């Protein structure tokens, strides 16, 4: 069943919810990288330029994504 689901997903069945979660993880990773480069929190535009994703899309991903608190465990699992 896992195989079938994976096949379906890869075949145009990918749920937005999954993509947004992945994007939100990437946003938080990018933010950490930029913050250490700039020595201050990056703005949305800076994140957007770095990731090639519009600031509005970023706000959507942040909302549907992984809560910041559970990020650490997700990334380091």
């Amino acid at each position: 069943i896992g195989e079938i689901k994976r096949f379906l997903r890869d075949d145009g069945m990918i749920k937005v919810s999954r993509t947004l979660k992945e994007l939100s993880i990437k946003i938080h990773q990018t933010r950490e990288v930029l913050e250490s480069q700039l020595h201050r929190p990056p703005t949305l535009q800076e994140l957007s330029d770095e990731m090639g994703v519009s600031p509005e899309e970023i706000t959507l991903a942040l909302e549907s994504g992984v809560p910041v608190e559970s990020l650490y465990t997700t990334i380091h699992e």
Partner: protein
Amino acid sequence: MNRQNYMKVEFTSRSENEAFARVAVSAFITQLDPTLEELEDVKTAVSEAVTNAIIHGYENEDGVIYVACTLNGQTASITVEDHGKGIPDVKLAMEPLYTSKPELERSGMGFTMMQTFMDSLDVQTTFGKGTTVTMTKTFQSSPADL
């Protein structure tokens, strides 16, 4: 979620608000757990309708655009309304490749894209008063719900 859920958003007709309109609709529709492809389709259709309101309806002057979305089961009904100049000949306007602004390098494919990416498209317009575009799309149920 048996009764219908709706949202309406209104905003200044500026191109910098187009991404906002797209994301507002996306955020509301994520409740139906769409696939990436389904959501992309809706976003493209909303973009085209909002761009039309900005550049044709209001001809880049400040006006107000209204976007509404109603959810009924797995079906979303979306309207994009402007109180701009209206369309003198809708049948002609909806023809593929027709554009009244060839000088702006418009493709004339906006209505065709709305038609292609959504399940239905209806255009109501009164010349001199404005235009309301209504589109619907039914989303697949989540595999988990089947």
